[in-house]
C-alpha cells in the first residue's frame, strides 16, 4: 500500500511539474513575439529522416529550411517570421499519418512540405483536408494522389483540394522512360521488376503499357520486397529470360542491389528506374557494376539551370550536414510556394495573418506562380505542377550524368 501511494504521489508531482513547465515555456514564447513584433508561421516538413531513404529526406528538410531562412532574410512577408518543424515518417504510412495529426494540432503550422513517398502521402491527405491545411509534396509522383483512383481510365477527379505537388507524376515519368528506352537506347525486350509499393508498382505499370504500345516486349515480371537484400534468384530469372534491359519500379536501396546482382549473373544489360533510384547512394552502395544504368528524374539537372545557381550557392553557404539530393530544388520551390501563398493571404488582409489563415492559404496556393529553382512553379486544376520537364540520367564512372533533357510530349 505504501508503494502505491508513493507511486500516486510521484505521478501527481510529475504531472504538475510538466504542466507548469509547459505554461512557462508558452509565456516565454509570447514574450519573444512581442519584442520582435513578428508573427511566427511554421512550415511543417514530413520526410524520412532515419532509415535507408534518409539521404533524400535530409535534403528535403534542409532545402525547405533554406527557403524559410531566405524568406526571413529578404523580409519576403513583412511581419511574418518563418520557421520549420521537421518530423520523421521513416517512410512508413502510419508514422506519416501520426505526424500529419501532430502538425494539424499545432496552430502555428500553416503549410506542410512533404512527404517523400507516395504511399505515405496517401495516409496523410485526408487528415490535412479535414483541417484545410495545405500540403505541397516535392517528390510524390503517383498520379492517383491528385487525379483520383480512376486516372488510368481517363476519369480525372481531384480527391483532396489541399494537396499540391511540385513533382511531375509517374504518368509523365514512366512514359518518358519507355520512350527513351525504346527510341533512344533501342531496347526491345525488357524485364520489369517492382517493389509492390504505391510508387514503384504504379511507375512500372505505366512504363510497361507505354513500352508495349511503342512495340517493345515485356519478357517477364517479378516483384521484390522492400528491405530484402537477396535478389539473386530474381536476377537469374532475368538472365534466363534473355531480356536486353530491366526496368525497376522502386527505390534505390533495392534498385542498387538488384542491378548489381543482375550484372553479377553475367547478364550485361542496363537497369532503368525512376527518380526513386536517381540518387548517389544507388551507385556508391554497390561497387563498380552500375555503369550504364539509367534513371529518369523530374525537371532539368539542377546544376545546369541558371535559376538554380543561387540556390546551390545559398545551400553551400549554410553548410548543411547532408547534400540537397535529388529533390532539393523541388523542396525549395515547395517551401517557397507556401511562403508566396502566405504572402498573398497577408497582403489581402492588411498585413496581418487572418483568423482562417489555413483555408485562405489553400485558396492562394492554386494561384501561386513564380520562377523557382526548377523553372516556372504553378499548379493546374488537380494541384499538379505545370512543369513537365524531365531528364534521363546514366551512370558513368560512378556518377549520374544527364544524357537527355526534354519537355514531355504525349
Amino acid at each position, binding site marked *: 500500500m505504501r508503494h502505491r501511494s508513493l507511486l500516486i504521489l510521484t505521478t501527481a508531482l510529475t504531472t504538475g511539474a510538466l504542466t507548469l513547465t509547459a505554461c512557462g515555456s508558452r509565456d516565454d514564447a509570447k514574450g519573444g513575439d512581442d519584442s520582435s513584433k513578428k508573427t511566427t508561421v511554421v512550415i511543417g516538413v514530413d520526410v524520412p529522416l*532515419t*532509415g*535507408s531513404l*534518409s*539521404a533524400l529526406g*535530409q535534403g528535403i528538410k534542409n532545402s525547405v529550411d533554406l527557403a524559410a531562412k531566405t524568406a526571413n532574410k529578404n523580409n519576403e512577408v513583412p511581419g511574418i517570421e518563418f520557421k520549420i518543424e521537421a518530423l520523421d515518417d521513416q517512410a512508413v504510412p502510419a508514422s506519416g499519418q501520426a505526424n500529419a495529426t501532430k502538425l494539424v494540432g499545432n496552430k502555428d503550422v500553416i503549410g506542410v512540405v512533404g512527404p517523400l513517398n507516395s504511399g505515405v502521402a496517401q495516409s496523410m491527405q485526408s487528415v490535412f483536408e479535414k483541417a484545410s491545411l495545405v500540403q505541397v509534396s516535392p517528390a510524390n509522383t503517383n498520379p492517383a494522389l491528385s487525379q483520383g483512383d480512376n486516372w488510368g481510365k481517363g476519369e480525372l477527379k481531384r480527391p483532396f483540394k489541399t494537396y499540391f505537388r511540385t513533382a511531375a507524376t509517374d504518368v509523365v515519368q514512366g512514359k518518358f522512360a519507355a520512350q527513351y528506352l525504346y527510341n533512344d537506347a533501342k531496347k526491345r525486350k525488357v524485364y520489369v*521488376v517492382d517493389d*509492390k509499393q504505391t510508387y514503384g508498382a504504379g511507375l512500372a505499370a505505366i512504363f510497361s503499357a507505354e513500352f508495349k504500345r511503342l512495340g517493345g516486349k515485356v519478357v517477364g*515480371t*517479378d*516483384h*521484390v*520486397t522492400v*528491405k*530484402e*537484400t*537477396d*535478389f*539473386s*534468384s*530474381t536476377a*537469374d*530469372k532475368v*538472365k*534466363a*529470360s534473355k531480356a536486353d534491359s530491366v526496368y525497376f519500379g522502386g527505390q534505390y*536501396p533495392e534498385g*542498387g*542491389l538488384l542491378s*548489381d546482382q543482375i550484372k*553479377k*549473373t*553475367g547478364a550485361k544489360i542496363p537497369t532503368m528506374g525512376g527518380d526513386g533510384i536517381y540518387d548517389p*547512394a544507388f551507385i*556508391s*552502395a*554497390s*561497387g*563498380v*557494376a552500375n555503369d550504364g544504368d539509367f534513371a529518369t528524374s523530374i525537371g532539368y539537372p539542377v546544376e545546369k539551370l541558371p535559376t538554380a545557381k543561387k540556390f546551390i550557392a545559398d545551400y553551400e553557404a549554410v553548410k548543411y550536414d547532408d547534400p540537397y539530393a535529388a529533390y532539393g530544388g523541388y523542396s525549395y520551390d515547395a517551401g517557397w510556394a507556401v511562403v508566396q501563398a502566405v504572402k498573398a493571404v497577408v497582403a489581402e488582409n492588411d498585413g496581418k495573418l487572418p483568423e482562417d489563415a489555413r483555408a485562405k492559404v489553400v485558396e492562394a496556393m492554386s494561384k501561386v506562380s513564380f520562377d523557382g529553382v526548377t523553372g516556372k512553379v504553378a499548379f493546374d486544376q488537380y494541384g499538379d505542377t505545370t512543369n513537365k520537364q524531365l531528364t534521363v540520367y546514366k551512370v558513368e564512372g560512378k556518377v549520374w550524368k544527364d544524357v537527355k533533357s526534354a519537355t514531355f510530349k504525349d
Partner: protein
Amino acid sequence: MHELPQQLANGLALGALYGLIAIGYTMVYGIVQLINFAHGEIFMIGGFGALTAYLVLPSGTTLLVAIPVMIIGGALASVGVATAAERFAYRPLRGAPRLAPLITAIGLSIVLQQLIWGFYPDAKKPRSFPEFQGESFKIFDNLYLQRADAFVLVLAPLCMLALGLFVAKSRSGRAMQATAQDPDTAKLMGINTDRIIVMAFAIGAAFAAVGAVAYGLDKGQINFEMGFILGLKAFTAAVLGGIGNIYGAMVGGVVLGLAEALSIAYIEEIPGMQQLGGGAWANVWAFVLLIVVLLVRPQGLLGERVADRA
C-alpha cells in the same frame, strides 16, 4: 524450368548465410533458454567492425589479405558487443520471468541499431563494402558460382566442423553440454556456468561476424538496418532445424534458403499459381514451410536439444 542448378546454388548460399547467423540463436537458447532478438544487430555490428578493419588497412590491400583481417575485426566488434550485452543486459535478469530478458533483447536491438545510425560515420545511408571483383566461377554450362557464394559455401561447413569438434572434444565444449542439460548440477560439479554462458554468446557472435563479412562481400554494401530481416530469417532457420541444436541451425538455414530460391523461381510456373510466385512471395512460402514443419514435427527437423532436459 529455367536453370534449376543455378537456383539450387543460390538457395544453398543464402541458406549457409542464414545458418551462420542461426548458430547464435540456437546456442544461446540451448544454454539459457533466451531468444536473443538482438542477435541480428550483433550480426550487423560484425559487418561494421569488418568494414572498420578494412578501412584501417592501407588502400590497395588485396582481398586475400584483407578478408582474414576483416573477419577478425568483425568478430572483435560483435563478440565485444555480445559479451557486454550478456553482462549488462541479460545477466542481471537471469532468474527473472522469461518475458523480461525477451523484451530487453528487443529493446537492445533498437538501441544497437540507433547507435550505429547515430555514431558510425555516414551510416545513415548504406555503406559500401569491399566486393569480390572478377567473373564468377563456371561449374557447368548452366551453373555459375559467384565468388561471394563460393566463399560462404566453403566457410560455413568449415565453421560448423570446428564448432562441432569444439563442443564434442574440448573441455569447455563438454562443460557447455553439461550446462545446457542442467545448469544447477553443472555448477555443483565445479563448472563456472557464467563463463560458459558468455562463451555461448561469444561463439554465436563470432559466427555472425563471419556471416556479416560474407554478406558484405556478396552485396557490396552494409547498412544499420540489415540485422533485422536477416536476424528474423536466421531465427526462423534455428526453429526450423530445432532450436538448441547446432547442426539443426545449419540444416534449417539451408532448407529455408532453398525454399526461398525455389519458390521465387518455380511457383509461378505452376498453372494457376502465377499470382503467388516471384520474389514478393518468397517469405510467405518460407513461413508456410515453417508452419508445416512445426505442425508435423514441433521439435524442428533435427529435434531440440533442450527436450531431453524435461
